[in-house]
């Protein structure tokens, strides 16, 4: 038995100690999660009452909603931390299927009763609670791509057999998202898939080819006036934020800059920000980072960015130490989901990126996003936990994770 640690089966059925594993990574991840989550709730508490009043609900409405989401999300996170991550390999296709069905319901005619138009787009399913299928789609894409990348790793050299199948599935998922319309999320989800494939070793020339393919689409998208205006104002604001004006296309950017800049070094103080009173659009959601900048200043911004970077580094450490390639790609995908969303949101907040409406994970109001983020963190913990399970010490040789595609835990053992 000791000679063939790969076959150490008995311990597998009874997982030892249901905690977060022996390594420190999962615990630190948990701590970071709780820190950011609390910071987020506190910020939401300050940012949302005015928004709540405008839609005639109680001042604490958003905080209460988000808190219930956080509670449920934490439960899901802890549960998923104990689910062997091999499960997701098995669940990848079903996830894609469920996400696709949900997305199709959104764009199909005749389903307005459960998929109403809000703010000119159909993004939510009313199923007792409001569900955002695109969040599920993002999750499905990172899981599915990780699974598929392990499978197709050997064929990456071929465009048609390597990258093309990925693009087909991504396309099927992204198109309905783009049609909601929610281009930001479609772009985000696509980028997440690409990042995973990139990490798995896809050829760079294929990326270049895809870029060429995509350029007409980008050109088409830019034929819409407001997008051009946004782009133009973006180019200008990027070089010189001080030139921003509060009218027209630059309004949101201007208000975000005013919020951030007026925070100065130490911030206006908690609850003392003023941009939330109708100046910043969506101060509880798309521009919640600006609230941090205004109320907590450069110190708060540094702290928050530092927390996210720490979380990303821990995520990548977990990926590096993952027992197998799927675990590694899955962990990277999960980390990228948080990192990319965070960067896109904060990048907009500091005026480095054109204005889009993306949530800041663990921060922005929105329970679908929060649940998916916490689920993804749970999966990262699961990977970390399995890395350090003491019933597989022998598998680690010279500190490296062997190609454990064959020794994955869960239903998919070769």
């Amino acid at each position: 038995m000791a000679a063939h640690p790969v076959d150490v089966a008995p311990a597998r059925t009874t997982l030892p100690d249901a905690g977060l594993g022996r390594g420190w990574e999962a615990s630190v991840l948990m701590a970071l999660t709780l820190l950011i989550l609390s910071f987020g709730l506190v910020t939401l508490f300050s940012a949302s009452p005015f928004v709540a009043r405008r839609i005639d609900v109680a001042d604490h409405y958003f905080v209460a909603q988000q808190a219930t989401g956080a509670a449920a999300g934490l439960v899901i996170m802890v549960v998923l931390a104990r689910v062997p991550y091999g499960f997701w390999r098995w669940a990848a296709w079903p996830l894609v299927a469920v996400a696709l069905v949900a997305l199709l319901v959104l764009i199909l005619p005749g389903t307005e009763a459960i998929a109403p138009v809000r703010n000119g787009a159909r993004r939510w399913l009313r199923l007792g609670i409001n569900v955002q299928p695109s969040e599920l789609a993002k999750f499905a894409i990172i899981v599915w791509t990780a699974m598929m990348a392990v499978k197709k790793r050997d064929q990456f050299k071929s465009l048609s057999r390597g990258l093309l199948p990925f693009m087909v599935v991504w396309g099927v998922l992204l198109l309905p998202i783009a049609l909601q319309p929610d281009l930001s999320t479609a772009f985000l989800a696509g980028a997440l898939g690409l990042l995973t494939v990139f990490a798995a070793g896809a050829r760079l020339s294929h990326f270049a080819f895809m870029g060429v393919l995509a350029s007409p689409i980008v050109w088409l998208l830019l034929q819409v006036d407001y997008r051009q205006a946004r782009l133009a104002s973006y180019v200008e604001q990027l070089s010189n934020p001080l030139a921003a004006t509060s009218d027209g296309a630059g309004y949101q950017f201007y208000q975000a800059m005013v919020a951030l800049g007026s925070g100065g070094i130490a911030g206006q103080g908690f609850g003392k920000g003023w941009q939330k009173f109708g100046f910043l659009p969506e101060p509880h959601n798309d521009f919640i980072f600006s609230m941090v900048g205004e109320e907590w200043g450069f110190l708060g911004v540094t702290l928050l960015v530092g927390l996210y970077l720490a979380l990303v580094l821990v995520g990548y450490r977990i990926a590096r130490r993952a027992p197998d390639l799927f675990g590694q790609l899955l962990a990277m995908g999960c980390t990228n989901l948080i990192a990319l969303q965070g960067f896109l949101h904060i990048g907009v907040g500091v005026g480095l990126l054109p204005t889009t409406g993306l949530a800041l994970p663990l921060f922005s109001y929105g329970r679908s996003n929060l649940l998916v983020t916490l689920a993804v963190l749970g999966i990262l913990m699961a990977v970390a936990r399995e890395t350090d399970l003491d019933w597989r010490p022998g598998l680690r040789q010279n500190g490296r994770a062997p190609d454990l595609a064959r020794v994955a835990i869960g239903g998919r053992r070769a």
Partner: protein
Amino acid sequence: MASRRDRDPLRFRRRVLIGVWLLSGTAVLVRAGQVQVVQGNHWQELALRQQRAAQEIPASRGRILDREGVPLVETQEQFEVGVAPREVRTGDAEAVKQALQSALDLSERRARRIVESDDRWIHLGRFPPSVQAELRGLRGVYLTRSLRRDYPQGRMALGVLGSVQEGRGAGGIEEAFDDVLRGRPGRAIVAKDPSGRIMGGQVFQMEAPISGSDLTLTLDADLQAIAKEALMAAVDSTEATGGDLLVTDPHTGEILAAVSVKNGVDAGLSFISEPVEPGSTIKPFILATLLSRGRAALSEEVDVGDGTWSQCGRVVHDVSARGVMTLARAVQVSSNVALAMKAQELTPHEEWEGLRDFGFGVGTGIAISGESHGTLRKPDEWTCQSRASHAIGYEIAATPLQMAMAYGALANGGRLMEPRLVKEIRYPDGTQEAREPRVVRRVIRRRLAEQITEVLVGVVDDGTGTAAGLASFTVAGKSGTARAYVNGDYNRDRFFSSFVGYFPAEDPQLVIYAKLDEAKGYGGALAGPVTRATMEAALAARGTPLHLEVLPQLTRSTAGGSGQAAPVIRFASTDLAATPPRTDPSIIAQAWSPDRPVLEVQIPDLRGVPVREASRILHALGLRVEVQGSGMVRGTRPLSGRLVMTGDTVLLRSGRVGQ
């Protein structure tokens, strides 16, 4: 290398990704540093520009008080209440409705309609500050502070007080003392919403306004009311077009009451702005000029002959004076001929100088604007008639105030005072600055002033001004009648009738000037009774600035000796035809003597008497009056026949009340 790649095949790509994320994080932080640290001040400024507004908080304008501290004008804080029904939250609707109902005293139906309305804005009007407590902080209910000038004593002496327009004093005291009254507005930094509207309830910084200073005037509210009443009544009964009534303190130049009535309204300032030819009231000053320069003596005899005298083609007439009389007597009977003749003893320059020294043709120095200097031409512009004309009060014009001040000089031992309207300034920090009386100049010697006073006492005792006499005090005074100069010609029927008097002659305390414009009749008969009515009422009114402890000793009457008699007081009628009955207000003067601080009086039966007449009667009794309605008195409270104390208030109810 190959083996290492096998062991960790994703190492490079993973490191690239880690690098990308670290770079992104750094870029974000650098950018945040640029915006927050480097450009922080700039954005902070822009933030303040769009989030904050500076609001001026108007200072509460200072009060204007009468000499006893009774507020004549004060600033009232009010709140304009408006409701934006759409902003009222559904959950709060009931609470808002109830608050509006109780705070603003609305009906339940109306309050509900307001709250449930679809209108954007409903303005509910101005309310006292007390509504704040219930309405502040309610969503959708807006309160705006405003300050209103309020006149607690009614609109009296508006000409003197002036008004406030757009925060600035306009006319009268309000304008002259605008700097003092205005105070300094405060500033508040308040919140703006994105549409630029002020958000209620958020004040970041506040520089409190400094209230204006209070002004204590020399006016006496009671006396002012009495004077107005007396003048209005006289204007009515003589069909005059208007008139002026001034009460001043000769020793200090203080103006205690000043009423100018024109076309039935008392808001004018004609007592300083409209000079008229004084007529015979100028004679004491011609006499003073003659005596002071040794050109005549009081006992000197003058022959007025048949009462006519001519010079340079002008014929001067006397109404009644005939034959030989002393100069003193000539003034008492107001002989034009005697004065015109005697004036020839003076050089034009001497006459001009004498009149100018009494303040004619020169501004008095009163604090409010709009004063006319009157007319007194330089001798080189005189014609050969001028000396005689001046002697009888023509070719010269003086404002009522100039006349009152000039008579004040006679009453004040020969010293001309500057008129005073403001007694003191009370600064908001509690300190006070008194405005001291100012002597303009000594015009004549004290002895001479006393001699002229004696002459003027004779006018009132049995000269032309008997209608102004008081039984209790010696009154010095002089009447005057100038033909009204209407449409370029002197009118034979219409006169400016005036009377100036001061009393008690032994120690003058009040100067009273009364003038009726274009009245039918002669000065003494017309303006005299007004003066007397005013004097009597002034004695009766509480708070009259007479040194009352002195008065009883000066009374000639003995009626007050027993103090037991229930005083039955009749009043001088201002009716033209009637010979005014002598009244006996000594008993009233006695009321304030130190030994007898108050006096019981019986309320007379006033039913059927005009309200104005009735209030004069009650004033004379030493009672304060409150009037309800107008027209004829229907009853009093307390009822007639009851005994009340002097100083008590009696309510007059008139027939037209509530119907």
